[in-house]
């Protein structure tokens, strides 16, 4: 009895969670523009999507920004994590608080404060500012992915490499980096996904002419319902799903307790 009730409740919750997403996906194949009636199967919204120059240019910016910011954040974040790992306690706790600050503070505040900074130093809002903002919010996540790997590292390995005559840089690339690589790759994928997914910070830090997919969706959605958004969301859902399944598989393989990496 209790078991049956539990199952029923779960089914209801899953229906609540999935109904909107599934409706969105199903209606991306709907021939009629209406949101309530089924007018037959079509792919015309998808082809309209790929002919929309605005959508294509935002796709280009989204991917470029995500790739560049994730790459830069991964290099900077890995270096920072190594530095933090070897810091004295007091300095370390200061830097960790600095790292948690953008993770904790609301996105809207991060967005407007960066916008104020960029305008204050007379940087034109656009590609550069968008990239700087994305690197800033990505680095902490890379650090938080790499640090646990550094903690697991046997510190004598690096010394052993030096004793055997390796130069510090050589020892780093041949001994340390392979050991922490899983954390670095997870950090990169996480940064890439977060950058793809971000709306709020991009919204405040970009200027005219440069818009990401999220911003394009927002401006389309504000004008009302548009089946092209359905098609776009179906594609984005599939891509993000694939990416996060990879990240998740990696992080559960890395850590025994299997805590999933989830984004907001």
């Amino acid at each position, binding site marked *: 009895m*209790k078991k049956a009730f*539990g199952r029923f*409740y*779960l089914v209801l*919750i899953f229906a*609540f*969670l*999935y109904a*909107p*997403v599934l*409706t*969105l996906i199903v209606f991306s194949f709907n021939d009629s523009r209406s*949101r*309530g*009636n089924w007018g037959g199967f079509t792919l015309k919204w998808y082809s309209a999507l790929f002919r929309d120059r605005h959508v294509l240019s935002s796709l280009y910016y989204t991917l470029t920004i995500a790739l560049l910011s994730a790459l830069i954040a991964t290099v*900077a*974040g890995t*270096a*920072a994590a190594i*530095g*933090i790992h*070897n810091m*004295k306690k007091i*300095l370390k706790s200061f*830097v960790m608080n*600095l790292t948690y*600050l*953008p993770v*904790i*503070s*609301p996105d*809207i*505040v991060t967005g*407007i*404060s*960066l916008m*104020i*900074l960029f305008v204050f130093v007379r940087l034109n809002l656009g590609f550069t500012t968008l990239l700087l903002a994305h690197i*800033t919010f990505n680095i902490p996540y890379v*650090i*938080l992915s790499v640090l646990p790997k550094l903690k697991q590292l046997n510190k004598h390995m*690096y010394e052993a490499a030096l004793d055997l005559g390796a130069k510090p840089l050589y020892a780093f690339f041949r001994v340390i980096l392979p050991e922490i690589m899983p954390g670095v790759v997870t950090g990169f994928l996480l940064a890439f996904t977060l950058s793809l*997914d971000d*709306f*709020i910070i991009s919204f*405040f830090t970009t200027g005219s002419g440069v818009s990401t997919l999220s911003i394009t*969706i*927002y401006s389309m*959605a*504000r004008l009302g*319902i548009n089946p092209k958004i359905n098609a776009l*969301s179906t594609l*984005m*859902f599939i891509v*993000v799903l694939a990416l996060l399944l990879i990240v998740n598989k990696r992080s559960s393989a890395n850590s025994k307790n*299997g*805590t*999933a990496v*989830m984004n*907001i």
Partner: protein
Amino acid sequence: MKKGWISYPYILWMIIFTIVPLLLVMYYGFTKTENGTMVLTPDNFIRVMEPTYLKVLWRSVLLALVSTVVCFIIGYPVAMILAGRDISRKSTLVLLFVIPMWMNFLLRTYAWMTLLDRKGLINTLLGALGLPQLNLLYTDFAVILGMVYNFLPFMVLPIYSVLRKIDRSLIEAAEDLGSDTVTVFRKVIFPLSLPGVVSGITMVFMPAVTTFIISKLLGGSQYMLIGNLIEDQFMRVYDWNFGSAVSIIMMLLILLSMGVMARYDKEGTGGGLF
């Protein structure tokens, strides 16, 4: 490897891109341009105390609280069922629960727009059943629904991860000592799950109180929450001084609620999301 200096560029970066911007927000919040010169003034904060804006603040807090309570009421049983032992294929179910969260936040909100619309699926179904059409979109109900839909996993997952770790022998001991199911829940399970509840409440309340997308898309363009007020000041009215003051108040609100919540989670055992 032993050198901390390798992270100095990062520290410099973070000071420039997180500390300095926050200081600039403070600077704008406490100043005002008068005859072309900046003067130090508390005027922006006094303006926030005007009834119009107090109402916006109050509505944001109220809606966020209502959504948090609804998430808790719906979510706690979900966490219990997922953590319970009479569920097979547990990890698949948890994964299924998390997947919709991976869809872009905007799109999840947009999905409800298409469902709640005057000519949307819900009203079409109601019409087909011969029932009267409902005005669902652009109401408080739609905004709360959007918040609950978007933030429900933030309530369920921390509670789930705490419940999962509860030592079964404690529950068995309580049963052996003669407690019925309700007492076991009240005296053993619920108190032990409190850290998860605390982080769940924090994780729902904070994004709910700061959102401006849900209120804009599901509440309509006239709908005002703190987030919308801030967005308006920066993107339309261009009153950065007032916008910064409102942002500072929002930060204070967040810090306050974090402080309150931290008191209930002294051991810091909250089942965090990361």
